[in-house]
């Protein structure tokens, strides 16, 4: 068996196409990004090596700290929102007794289909000073009018919500697909044991989809760290760069100030942050993976 699953030729054939494309069109450019982050390159002229200057400048830049704070807020908001709603809706949809479940499944996915531009235009109309939301508060007689997107400290939460709202549908679809791949007899067994539907899911779905959840966690957290488009459309990074992220810093430095090297230093820091997050998540889930394997083995023996 070990020899069967360790077929060297097969492994090579399987991993080569992906690796080739990845290395050529992604990895080589990434290496260049790191290399240029140590230079004063402006995108066009010959770069001069400047050592750690870009990084030292970056760490003393006020915007660098704002950006990191924003990324953290963004990542936490979207992770909590998406995982929570995606799980709840996925379990609901998977219940065969739920009326209109096919329709609901399509509906929850719709925001994912639309381009970010459309979604951001919609939300900027809803959230603007005289937008739908403030008007609703007005009609309700409440004076809870807010400058939703223009607030120095709160805007980032609002932007994170827009992103979470749009991409929740995708994690939802992944979890639905995951539930489908769990054999139905697991649930039947649970039902016979007298578990309620919710309880059955708590006990079966969530542990069995650990790998899917791990993945969802990684995309949410790293998605938060590299956020850019939403800020670019909704606030333009403002007011006064208070909704910047490292990607935004990179964009601003490279294209507004023609200081590509500095921008790429910001991008490099961001990539390192993402990698750290991924490693930490892998580390946290590692033990659970093993536990899960053991449990599986036990269940097999019992059955």
């Amino acid at each position: 068996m070990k020899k069967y699953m360790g077929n060297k030729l097969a492994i090579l054939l399987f991993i080569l196409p992906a690796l080739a494309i990845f290395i050529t069109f992604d990895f080589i450019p990434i290496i260049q990004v790191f290399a240029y982050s140590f230079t004063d390159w402006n995108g066009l002229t010959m770069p001069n090596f400047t050592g750690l200057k870009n990084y030292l400048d970056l760490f003393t830049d006020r915007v660098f700290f704002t950006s990191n704070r924003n990324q953290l807020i963004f990542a936490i908001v979207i992770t909590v929102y998406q995982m929570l709603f995606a799980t709840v809706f996925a379990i609901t949809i998977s219940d065969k007794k739920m009326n209109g479940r096919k329709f609901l499944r399509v509906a929850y996915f719709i925001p994912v289909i639309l381009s970010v531009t459309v979604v951001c235009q919609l939300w900027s109309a809803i959230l603007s000073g005289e937008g739908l939301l403030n008007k609703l508060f007005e009609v309700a007689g409440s004076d809870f009018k807010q400058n939703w997107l223009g607030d120095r400290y709160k805007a980032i939460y609002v932007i994170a919500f827009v992103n979470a709202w749009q991409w929740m549908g995708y994690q939802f679809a992944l979890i639905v697909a995951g539930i489908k791949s769990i054999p139905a007899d697991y649930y039947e067994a649970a039902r016979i044991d007298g578990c309620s539907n919710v309880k059955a899911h708590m006990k079966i779905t969530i542990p069995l989809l650990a790998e899917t959840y791990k993945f969802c966690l990684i995309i949410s957290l790293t998605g938060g760290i590299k956020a850019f488009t939403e800020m670019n459309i909704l606030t333009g990074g403002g007011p006064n760069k208070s909704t910047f992220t490292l990607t935004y810093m990179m964009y601003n430095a490279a294209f507004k100030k023609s200081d590509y090297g500095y921008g790429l230093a910001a991008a490099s820091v961001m990539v390192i942050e993402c990698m750290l997050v991924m490693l930490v998540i892998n580390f946290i889930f590692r033990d659970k993976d093993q536990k899960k394997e053991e449990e599986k083995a036990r269940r097999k023996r019992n059955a």
Partner: protein
Amino acid sequence: MKKRLLSSLVCLTVAATSLIGCGNAAATTTDTAVSTETKTEAADTTATETKAEDTTATSGEKVTLSIYTQYADDDTKVPYDYAVEQLKEAYPNVELNLIVQAQDDGQTLKTLAATGQLPDIYQASTDLINTFRESNQIMVLNDVAESTGFLDKLYDANKDLAYAEDGNIYAFPFSGQEYVLWYYNKALFAENNLEVPQTYDDLLNCIEVFKSKGITPLALFGQEGWNTAAAFDVVATRYTAGGIKALDEGTAKITDEAYVNAAKKLEELVAAGLFQEDATTTNYDQASEKFLSGEAAMFINGQWYIEDATKALGDNVDWMFYPAQDAAAYTAGKAAFSGGGSASGFAVNPDSANAELAAEVAEFITEKYCEAKVMYRHNPLVALNTGKEPDSEYPAMMKKLSDTLPSVTSTTKFTWGLTNSTFNDGIQSESQGLVSGQFTADEFIADMEDIME
């Protein structure tokens, strides 16, 4: 089925391995000298192409030139369409391939330049001219400007717009000197028995009255940094005529008393509610519609807006001299405008297969842009003396501006005319902070000082 899958898999792998081979080779060279390599590469290909193209050009066959410019609203479409039409007669063998410019801070053009794909003709701002100058990706147009008579047609006042800092011509400007105008809705002021404000105290009074009526005093499109920088500049020029231009050139410091006072004054006006609360997330169209529909009483924009404003509001719109701290400063300040010309316009890619022809065509298009702007957009403030008359009378606001201009003694710059890109980025975002009302004048001054170090 199985066999087909397998064989295609093998094909893929073979292709992939060859890709990897090239990829690694590329990696080692790219790391050391990317730009030179691509440059020589680009030069090689253009050299061979030039030969081929030369023969075709002389034999009267079609030449296609790519041009990167804006093409969306009337202000950009009308001149372009007119130029294309005229070009057909003057250069029947030239065809233009329009690449529509994106609103992306020059990201597309810079990437095209970095990868050696610059279009033959492109619209270049001051910032781009300075960047491309260093990397020789912008053609020196001195000779063409001479031979086509461009320099003769250029208004004396606009001479400085054609020349870059090093004394060469890199772009043919079509816009002349431009000005930041403080527009106001006459009808709204009359309805509320308000005089046009001359001092900041008058202005504060206007703000109070308009706000009590639910009218936005001044609609700012603060999502765009240039508008917030202009808002700061119209205040700063009341205290020192140099405004942001002096800061850009380094002849003044942000900690100078005049700028500190200006920032404090703007802070006070913002706190009183001069701008709408969500000003920093308002885009141009939102703010403009607010003003044109009478929901906002005032508006700050360039003089190019005269045409649109007149079309929508007719006699009810006018521009005012910027209010100042007292009556004396107001009168004195009438001669100091915010805004100014910028060295920008149509530039040519020196590596183009038809660089010479492209330069001629660029000059031709520039002339036609000026003509179209005068004739159909009623904007006489173009770079060149076209000798054309507008197809109808100039709007009243334009006449008033023309009458005022001879007495104007100083202008500043629009952000796209600034030369120091660090300062440019700084003033755009810091002024945005100031108008948001969430950053104090002290923070503004401190941050700007920090940025300029």
